[in-house]
């Protein structure tokens, strides 16, 4: 209710504001006219003071030898200069994770719509940095068994890779590894934690 009332008040406030601006403009116009009419003396040109001569205080020097010409530095063609991502170390790069993790449903390695969106973003990043090679880690939540989860994690990693390859990323830039349920992202024991742990995690291994 409060919110709705606030919205209804807005046109009134805007009207008041416009009125205020209009009156301010007319006052300024009146003032400007008064000042222009009041000044009758023409402006007088005065000579500017000479610039200070510092060189005269010291004996004259021979001109400095020309600076050696700097060797032209080879600019890497990719990526664009001034890019903070290109200058970061691998660790910093992975810490800021320009590649988004991809999440999976329970007991599933299917790349669903949200996962497809994340992978499309990742594919765009990988196309911008064609030198990067990436390891895709497949992870599982703790409810499955340790051994079978190694297979499930592998399938998740491979599913993410297959989707990236379908978006035009060369397969030889993408390695897969399964960690099963060995490295949960969230150590919790509830669905919120499980959902974060059923993931494909991207690690940049070379750039």
């Amino acid at each position, binding site marked *: 209710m409060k919110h709705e009332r606030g919205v209804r008040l807005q046109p009134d406030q805007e009207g008041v504001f416009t009125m205020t601006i209009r009156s301010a403009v007319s006052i300024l116009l009146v003032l400007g006219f008064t000042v222009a009419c009041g000044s009758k003396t023409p402006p007088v040109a005065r000579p500017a003071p000479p610039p200070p001569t510092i060189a005269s205080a010291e004996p004259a020097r021979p001109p400095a030898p020309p600076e050696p010409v700097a060797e032209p530095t080879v600019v890497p063609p990719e990526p664009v200069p001034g890019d903070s991502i290109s200058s970061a170390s691998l660790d910093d790069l992975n810490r800021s994770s320009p590649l988004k993790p991809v999440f999976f449903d329970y007991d599933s390695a299917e790349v669903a719509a949200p996962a497809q969106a994340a992978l499309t973003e990742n594919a765009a990043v990988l196309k911008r940095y064609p030198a990067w090679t990436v*390891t895709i880690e497949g992870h599982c939540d703790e409810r499955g*068994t340790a051994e079978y989860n190694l*297979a499930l994690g592998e399938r998740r990693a491979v599913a993410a890779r297959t989707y990236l390859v379908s978006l035009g990323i060369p397969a030889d830039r993408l390695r*897969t*590894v399964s960690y099963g349920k060995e490295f949960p992202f969230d150590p919790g024991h509830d669905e919120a934690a499980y959902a974060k742990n059923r993931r494909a995690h991207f*690690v940049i291994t070379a750039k």
Partner: protein
Amino acid sequence: MRMIAAVAVAAFVTLRAGAQPPPPAVPSAPQQPSEITTTITGEGGAPPRLAVPEFIALTRDAETQAIARTITRVLFDDLTFEREFALVPRDIYSTIPAATGFSDVPFDRWRELNADGLIIGTVQKLPAGLRIEVRLFDMRSRQPLPPSAFGKEYSGSAANPRLYAHTMADEIHQSQRALRGVARTKLTFNSDRDGERMTGTIENRSVKEIYIVDYDGENQRRVTVGKSLNITPTWSPDGRSIAYSSYRRGQPNIFISNIYQGTLEELTKTAGNNFTPSWSPDGTRLCFASTRDGNMEIYVANRDGSNVRRLTNHPASDITPTWAPSGTQIAFTSDRTGTPQIYIVGADGLGLQKLTSEPYADRATWSPGPFNEVAYTARTGPGNDIKVISLATREVRQLTFGEGTNESPSWAANGRHLAYTSTRSGKTQIFTMARDGKNLKQITRLGNNYQPDWSR
């Protein structure tokens, strides 16, 4: 003296200290039979009742007395473990005076106890180790001095007195019950107990290293120092090597650690990911899961990594194989029906059959003879439990019932016990139980401990 002469024991077993396992017992040219064939039986088919008074320290120093106490306690536990004997509680015979040697055992007093057998042992400290003698007296005999049904003498290092007791227990089980005891077996497993962190990763990840432990939870020792993820360890049949999967090179590969030589071999060196090794019963080959051809399939290779053959060929995932004791078949997990189930395939890749029909089944482990069974992890609710399926009748028995989640079963060498992991005490710990689900025993307590494998 007359009694000692009557005991015809001439077998000497040398025990070595520390990391060295006992070499096979080599009798030193026995002049008399080294095995005594008398068998003590219980009344009416009941397990024989045994009394195990404290071993007699022939040298009276504190160290020898401590060793005598340790051996007695460990022997008592080892003999209890197989449930082949009924051990008379020790407080019942605490009033019977202790002997100073075999010559003054008060047999009349021991007869009042109504035990079937009496184990008397002596411990003597020598300049270079120990000399230990043990005899099992047949208390049902009407002779004035009960005859010895089992007797043996051991000499060797004083470094690990428990090993003397384990050896005695195995030999008593063998001679009296024709049973292969497991007192000298060990478990291997992986653990995060040392709290070390993985290097070269941004996320905070704990390393897992491979450990070994005596079957009773004693002598826990670390095997790997990879500061990496090391999982699914498995004993070679001779107990001298452990194969496991390690991520130390980034991709998981299978390594073989020869633990008594301190050498490391690499079974798989391919680009694929290689998981869950399992030894053939003769130790010459291993089967494992690998993605070398793109999909997770089961492979067999010689121990040196040569002659790799693919056993499965299916777009689903196949993992965690286990070899049948016969060496002719392999059980493994596959999700080709949509959920993971246990399958069996011939070691030649033929004769595939589905074994389980569970909501979810994993980590098969094939029982040694005489039991023709496969144990596995089954989903029974929010967590998992251990089940056993008979290969003859396909009858399924459940051994754990929802206390925590229970996973990764592994049979003992005689098929009478299982090791597995359970969260019933909080963290993930290794437990052992009898094949009927009874006699639960917690083996590990530090950190989290996973994927036990019981040595042959």
